[in-house]
């Protein structure tokens, strides 16, 4: 009898192992299900449904503007799936590893402007050359240039750009006894960010209690730098951050903010920054087009009609993205067609109407119409006009592979030490320099 119980135990154990193994195998099978059905589709099976995936970070607005639904209606054989990774710093390393593994990429991958140079310089052979398929003249020249390799290959199509304006709270300006008319304000700081800082000093003299002039010194730095032609790299691809006139100038402006009391000392995209919008704890914020939607969302009802938009001191660009088609994708032809369609002027205009992400295709500018809620939220400011004017005069900039980490070192180490830890500007500059050396592996 003992033996039989032992045998039944062993049988049970075997059964358990078998069940587990089949479970694992089944898991694998269902995992690769998408892939296999995809490959069948491209071979043209009976149903003929092709699933295209698009990998994005943050809010691209395609889904929100109903573009996927439109496209699927026009192309009944295509299904579109969006894979969103919220944070760029998580998204980009993931894309890089998948590109090099040659598998796991989406059919279309979004690329942030801070990463586009790295993509152009190191990943060009992993992307389909889109130059032949599109009419390049649709896009702003500098936007195309950012995604073009030395031998003329276009690896990404421009989506939005970030032309600069200043968003300000009319109600707080009024209490502080400042000008509230947007054209007159723009006149007051026109041409120089230092004039904007001067106005900040004036604001602080009679500032409504609990409010500051600007959210952070870093945002002023980024906004000012976006208008300089020379930033961290020269046109030969050498790192020149410590000699760059643009960086010096923007740094000095940021320092005059950081060492005064006009900054709310927040860190952008942190939760407390969001709360700052909700509680109206700062009166102005450097406002690339994509910030419009953000402000509307975070300030909520209390900000309605209190926010206004004025032209920035200098024409500048901050942010913006591209979408590219990896060669590892299974449906390159379909993906190129979709990418082309998504970035065409009409579609970019639709995204602007929903999300206020500004088009990189000038042909769209004449037909731009922001949503009526947005215009009334921003005191009926002519935001289309303001952003188009800025977009047309943005200087072209040279970018490099490590733009993003160098920028982070300056804002989140250098400027932050001065702003929040009371270090001197010289100490902040040295700390940023040390960090950048680490970034560049020197």
């Amino acid at each position: 009898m003992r033996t039989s119980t032992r045998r039944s135990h062993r049988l049970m154990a075997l059964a358990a192992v078998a069940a587990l193994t089949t479970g694992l195998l089944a898991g694998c099978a269902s995992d690769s299900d998408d892939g296999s059905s995809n490959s069948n589709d491209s071979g043209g099976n009976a149903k003929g449904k092709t699933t295209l995936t698009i990998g994005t970070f943050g809010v691209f607005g395609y889904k929100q503007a109903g573009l996927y639904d439109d496209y699927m209606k026009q192309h009944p054989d295509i299904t579109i799936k969006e894979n969103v990774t919220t944070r760029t710093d998580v998204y980009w390393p993931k894309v890089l590893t998948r590109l090099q593994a040659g598998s796991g990429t989406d059919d279309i991958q979004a690329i942030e402007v801070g990463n586009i140079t790295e993509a152009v310089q190191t990943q060009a052979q992993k992307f389909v050359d889109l130059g032949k398929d599109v009419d390049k003249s649709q896009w702003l020249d500098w936007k195309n240039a950012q995604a073009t390799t030395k031998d003329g290959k276009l690896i990404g199509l421009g989506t939005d750009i970030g032309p600069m304006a200043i968003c300000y709270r009319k109600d707080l300006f009024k209490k502080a006894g400042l000008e509230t008319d947007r054209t007159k304000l723009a006149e007051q700081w026109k041409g120089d960010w230092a004039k904007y800082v001067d106005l900040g000093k004036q604001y602080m003299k009679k500032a409504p209690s609990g409010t500051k002039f600007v959210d952070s010194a870093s945002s002023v730095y980024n906004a000012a730098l976006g208008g300089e032609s020379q930033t961290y790299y020269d046109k030969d691809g050498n790192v020149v951050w410590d000699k760059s006139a643009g960086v010096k100038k923007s740094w000095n402006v940021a320092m005059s903010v950081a060492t005064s009391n006009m900054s709310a000392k927040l860190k952008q995209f942190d939760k407390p920054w969001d709360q700052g919008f909700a509680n109206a704890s700062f009166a102005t914020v450097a406002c690339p087009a994509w910030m419009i939607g953000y402000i509307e969302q975070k300030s909520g009802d209390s900000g309605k009609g209190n926010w206004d938009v004025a032209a920035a001191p200098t024409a500048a660009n901050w942010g913006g993205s591209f979408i590219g088609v990896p060669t590892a994708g299974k449906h390159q032809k379909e993906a190129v067609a979709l990418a082309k369609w998504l970035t065409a002027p009409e579609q970019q205009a639709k995204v602007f109407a929903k999300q206020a992400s500004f088009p990189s295709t000038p042909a769209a500018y004449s037909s731009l119409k922001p949503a009526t809620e947005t215009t009334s939220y921003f005191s009926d400011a002519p935001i289309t006009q303001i952003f188009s004017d800025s977009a047309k005069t943005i200087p072209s900039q040279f970018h490099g592979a490590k733009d993003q980490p160098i920028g982070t070192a300056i804002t989140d180490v250098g400027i932050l030490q001065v702003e929040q830890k009371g270090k001197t500007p010289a100490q902040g500059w040295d700390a940023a320099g040390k960090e950048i050396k680490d970034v560049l592996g020197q």
Partner: protein
Amino acid sequence: MTSSKQALADPASSAEAASGSQPGAARGARGRGTPAQGPDSWRSRFYRWDMKASPYVFIAPFFIIFGAFSLIPLLYTAWYSLHNVQLSALDHQTWAGLDNYRNLLSSDFFWNALKNTFTIGVLATVPQLMAALWLAHLLNYHLRGSTVWRVVMLTPYATSVAAATLVFTLLYSWDGGMVNWFLDFFGIDAINWRESDVGSQFAVSSIVIWRWTGYNALIYLAAMQAIPSDLYESAAIDGANRWQQFLHVTVPQLRPTILFTVVVSTIGATQLFGEPLLFGGVSGSKGGSEHQYQTLGLYMYDQGWIIGNLGKASAIAWSMFLILLIVAVINLLLTRRLRKSQ
């Protein structure tokens, strides 16, 4: 339980009993009653094979998974750490020898991260274990609704790191955070919890303490309940009050358990990553503008995934592994000494 234990123990004992002869054959002979005749019969060969192979098949899933997800990555990381590898060009590796390690030893950021890992580890572990011990002691008394208290203690542990850290980040935000608001009642000026050196480390530690104290308390509680009550009775007869009982009966009896929690907490502290990363917000991998709460885990993440220097990141990973080995050896020596002294 007993039957399955028997079944597990049985093959070994039968093998021992039949030592000298072939265990498979012996077992087949016993098990089948009338065994297949002759050593060459397929049945006996199958049983022999079965006897030898089955145990390996049973343990194989663990070792396959361990190999695929632990051992191979571990070795691959060691290989990477001897090369210059960029995240953007994984197929262009150049031999670097020990350069990455030399680079680390001369890097201020590495030593800073090591120091932070240690100080945050101490700040988090010591109060945490002491509080856990005290809480367990309180819970060990007969309380009304003791299950409720125990469940409540374990809830922080069930919270996700991300959720806990995000809430703590709001509490500690220097402008309008609840902690500073509370300090204001006592006339203490607002502290910039994220950028001050000690303040930020304290803040990160407090998240760890909040999450793990209850967990450790339950381990202590389980061990405490195994202490025979007559020890307490005789101590009480000798006139020891509760504090003295705690000090002279509970703590010595719990020594092995305490050692276990110390080891586990030390390993956890060395790998600290999620809390400081999320506490730092958008550029959390830097661990503050002066790297004041950048732990080794964060430094590795920053080098590998933000800066893209995978060779150096691998070197950091292996340094962490070596540090953990050293910690383990120290713990082992301490345990031995403790056992000898008992």
